[in-house]
């Protein structure tokens, strides 16, 4: 079939090209440009080739060691966050009311943490967890447990994890709730007729039907937690020591603190690639999990 060729069609695509160019391609190319150069300020740049990348990926160098440490911290943090928030979110969604005025009330309460700006969340918890004037910190200390998130790395980690769980579990719960609501009543009725137990209903109906929204929830929570910046920055500033210095925090330190634009650019490119690669792996694994390859023969 012949398709009409009309070069004026390019004009229609041009606005999109322009927007994408200015919003994505040009900024990224600027970063690529920085990543192969070094600067000592004064807007003077020197060619450095792949030097920064070599240094970054070699753990024996200062930059490489720093990068690897932060990367491990990030991966550990995301793993903890997913391991807590996903099951907890499902549990909350399962126990949310299905009808009546309670639905609206629950939804509003669940949405509240999501509406608070990140830096405010950080500030709230910074005060809340303080040993002298913070309710939580004071209460824990009053129980005889030595808790000080500014001095103890473990306490700092626990505080950040609890803060993130408080902030984002609602998102997982709301997504799961939407997934649960889309299951027709007939499924539950059929399961009752088939004599299924509560657990069997969960594993055979609810979980499979929630798979799609869970995929979205896991992806969103992974990306957000892997790129977390504001809350730990406000709460601990990356400390004590470097205990909570995640990649994003380290990146800002290098770029704006030390003004090492070349190192920072190389680091952010690698960081970006890691996020993309991990998301791709997650997505592929989760969309393929449990789906049977369609057989060649037609259904009888």
């Amino acid at each position: 079939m012949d398709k009409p060729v009309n070069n004026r069609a390019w004009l229609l695509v041009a606005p999109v090209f322009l927007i994408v160019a200015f919003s994505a391609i040009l900024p990224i190319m600027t970063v690529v440009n920085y990543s192969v150069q070094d600067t000592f300020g004064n807007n003077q740049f020197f060619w450095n080739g792949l030097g920064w990348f070599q240094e970054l990926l070699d753990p024996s160098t200062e930059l490489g060691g720093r990068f690897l440490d932060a990367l491990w911290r990030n991966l550990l943090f995301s793993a903890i966050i997913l391991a807590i928030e996903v099951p907890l979110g499902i549990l909350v969604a399962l126990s949310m009311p299905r009808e009546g005025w309670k639905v609206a009330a629950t939804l509003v309460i669940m949405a509240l943490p999501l509406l608070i700006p990140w830096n405010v969340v950080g500030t709230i918890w910074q005060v809340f967890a303080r040993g002298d004037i913070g309710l939580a910190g004071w209460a824990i200390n009053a129980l005889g447990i030595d808790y000080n998130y500014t001095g103890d790395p473990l306490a700092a980690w626990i505080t950040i994890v609890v803060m993130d769980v408080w902030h984002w579990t609602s998102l997982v719960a709301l997504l799961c709730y939407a997934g649960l609501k889309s299951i027709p009543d007939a499924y539950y009725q059929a399961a009752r007729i088939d004599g299924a137990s509560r657990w069997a209903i969960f594993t055979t109906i609810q979980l499979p039907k929630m798979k799609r929204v869970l995929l979205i929830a896991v992806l969103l929570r992974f990306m957000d937690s892997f790129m977390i910046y504001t809350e730990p920055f406000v709460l601990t500033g990356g400390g004590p020591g470097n205990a909570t210095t995640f990649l994003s925090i380290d990146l800002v330190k290098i770029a704006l603190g030390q003004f090492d634009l070349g190192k920072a650019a190389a680091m952010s490119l690698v960081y970006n690639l890691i996020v993309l690669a991990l998301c791709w792996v997650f997505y592929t694994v989760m969309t393929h999990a449990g789906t049977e390859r369609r057989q060649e023969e037609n259904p009888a």
Partner: protein
Amino acid sequence: MASITLDGLAHAYRPDPRGPQDYALKEINHVWRQGGAYALLGPSGCGKTTLLNIISGLVIPTRGRILFDDRDVTRLPTEARNIAQVFQFPVVYDTMTVRENLAFPLKNRKMPREAIARRVEEIASRLDMSSVLDRKASNLTADAKQKISLGRGLVREDVAAILFDEPLTVIDPHLKWQLRSSLKELHRALDLTMIYVTHDQTEALTFADTVVVMHDGAVVQTGTPEELFERPAHTFVGHFIGSPGMNVLPAKVEGRTAHVGGVAIALERAYPALPAGERIELGVRPEFATLAKPGHGLPVKVTRIEDIGRARIARIEISGNPAAAMVPEELSLDGDSAGLTLDSRQIHIYADGVLVPGEPAGREGVA
């Protein structure tokens, strides 16, 4: 195996029903015979699904009792009743194979594994699904999924009745017919009570031995397809069953004559005891009204003639009242006036919508 008795059953979805208007299901007494094939027929919102859910135990009725044989099951939960249900939209467990789907109700009831395997094979071969037993149920077509839902009911040996809630809604038309006849076959082979809810008269009339017609939360007639066709107990049944539906004309009855506007129609029976003050109507199915040349029978005006393939149907007016009649093949008309002959044995008189039996011709002289 059991007969199911509905004893004074009524249901309102509001917790505090005040009048009959609050009841989704008005009082109903009925016995479903063991092994019968029943259809519950009625338009959307007439209460048929409510009735079905009460029988299966998904809804607890406001009043009345349900008995399986002599056992009162009104408040028993669904899983404790010997009931299976097939829903409007196919319900299969997506992550399981067809085999696992069929085994699921038995596994939940802790049956020994070998017995489950045997039973599943047996039912699968009955349903003609042996070849797809190891496929994922979610990859099958809608009609195959509907067969799986049915199969999950059939595997249970204790099942007394299978309820169908408009099971063919999402099935392709050419497969509907197939699935319906395999249902009939299963019914004959397994001696199960089947109750089939539908708003499609063809489905109801071809599937069931006994059709229960519901309207506005109440049962208006129970009978064989022939009875529903030949003696509709209510003008609603006349309208709802048959295509086109029964002609219902406002009439005045005197002795053995009915007057529709200025036209006098001879009746087979006399109606001496017609209640005064009620709306009296004459009903006759188009199949028993035949168009003729002008001058033969009752004078009517023809507005339109429709060719529906195997027959022609005339839209006519009898002193201003719209009606339908059959057009004989050889008849051709000039102009819009024609005659109408009626099969007088098939004319029924209704008072406020309800059939009045009338008295046989022979006794009229005595009275």
